């Protein structure tokens, strides 16, 4: 317990880092997921921008990347991280890699959510002359907003999970804190403190997501 009190500043720093990593990856991964999901949805056979090649490529990518355990993906994508963000280690690398993995995971969720929008509503928008880009922003996304918010809430938990291994490539956060000060120093109380913070964080976000989704669905 004394160790934990001594480590309080580090705990808050770690919590801040987790928020920072998860916040940015939610932003980038979320946008990437929207793009991948929209790409999958729009290019699907029978949809407004039907394109077999685009659909097949995206579909294969999603199916290949999603099942790779994140810690292996992190190692495998290191050269790519170095090429894109200039470094293979630290928070920038972990943010890039999580965002990339999350884009594909979220892409599938976005696609599924968009598929719940009735094709008839798209027809109605087309029948009044709306362009595909207008349909995306004024019909598809607003109509699927409730499920999309729940999808983002769901992916948030996955982001927290992925961020926990940041320590392996020199990143920070609660995962790193728990391993470094708790696990390796045989101090379970320190680990549990990290666990508790993560539970509180996830519950808060889940609550927020649920209430926003409820608002969007007006239920």
């Amino acid at each position, binding site marked *: 317990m004394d160790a934990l009190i001594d480590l309080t500043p580090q705990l808050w720093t770690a919590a801040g880092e987790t928020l920072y990593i998860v916040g940015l990856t939610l932003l980038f991964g979320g946008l990437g997921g929207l793009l991948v999901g929209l790409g999958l949805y729009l290019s699907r056979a029978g949809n407004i921008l039907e394109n077999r090649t685009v659909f097949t490529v995206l579909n294969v990518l999603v199916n290949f990347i999603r099942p790779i355990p994140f810690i292996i993906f992190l190692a495998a994508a290191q050269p790519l991280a170095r090429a894109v963000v200039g470094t293979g280690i630290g928070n920038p690398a972990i943010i890039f890699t999580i965002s990339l993995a999350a884009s594909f995971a979220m892409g599938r969720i976005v696609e599924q959510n968009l598929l719940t929008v*009735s094709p*008839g*509503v798209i*027809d*109605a*928008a*087309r*029948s*009044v*002359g*709306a*362009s595909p880009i*207008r349909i995306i922003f*004024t*019909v598809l996304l*607003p*109509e699927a*907003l409730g499920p999309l918010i729940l999808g983002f809430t769901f992916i948030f938990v996955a982001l927290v999970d992925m961020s926990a291994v940041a320590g392996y490539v020199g990143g920070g956060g609660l995962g790193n804190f728990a391993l470094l000060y708790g696990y390796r120093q045989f101090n379970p109380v320190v680990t549990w403190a990290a666990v508790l913070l993560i539970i509180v964080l996830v519950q808060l976000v889940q609550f927020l997501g649920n209430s926003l989704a409820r608002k*969007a669905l*007006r239920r």
Partner: protein
Amino acid sequence: MPVVSLRDVSKVYPATTKGGDPVVAIEGVSLDVEAGDVYGIIGYSGAGKSTLVRLMNALERSSSGEILINGQDIARLPESKLREVRLGIGMIFQQFNLLNSRTVAGNVSYPLEVAGRPKAERRARVAELLEFVGLADKARAYPDELSGGQKQRVGIARALATQPSILLADEATSALDPETTHEVLALLGRINREFGVTIIVITHEMDVIQTIAGKVAVMDQGRVIERGDVFDVFSDPQHPASARFVGTVVKGVPSAAELAVLRARHPGRIVTLSFRDAGVDQQALFGELARAGVAFEVIYGGINEIQGRPFGHLTLSLTADDAVVDDVLDRIRELTTVTEVR
């Protein structure tokens, strides 16, 4: 010039399975709809009528043929050029297809936003339209708070927002109960009369055609098998499929099975008299029977009114000496068509 003119239009879908045959949804359909018409297109599900109407605003693209909207061929027009065309064609749907994320007013406003109308104009037009369809008090409600009939009225208001000259109704009343159906049909009738909007009604219910349409085309297996004035098709259907549709609302000539039942119950000679238009003088006709002393009983059929013109078939059982009956039937034949069922 017809406002909608299809010339030899076909729509073929690629085979659904590898090596299967392509599916022909529409085959060589030609159709002219004149300005101000209420034109009904009737057929069983799978007859191709929904596909046909979706070709008219290019929601689906035809495989061949010309689709002239106000004289302009839209069949080969690229998607980006269709916006102007579609602004002139409203469409309403069986499932209403309202945006659940928008209020009633937001839904009606949508086409105006697409058309780039300024906000003040949109607001005024939305108020006017909601007033017209009788939903002014529901402007701020969401679609899931409305009944089916109300949703369809919102759909109609939305379809009319940009003041189109053509309105396509794709099974617009098929999800509604009979009473609501008649309300919606009455509204469509008003739109046709008050605004001169040409309406194309797709339906599988002959009742809808009878209520609202002036002309009708009957579709079967992707083809138009019969077309004409609703009165003509109702009173004298040429094709068996048309006759079946007419039979759903008009009790006409008894079928063989029905006839067997009738014959068992009525020993007299059974004849069917056909009435078409006001040309048949019923008083004179029944007067002949009375004068000849032939006892008769109406055992089947009915008289209907389509577009204010009566028509129908009455099947009678006549009881008298054969010679007397023959004699009176000869005289009645001069007044109308008589079919004797032996």
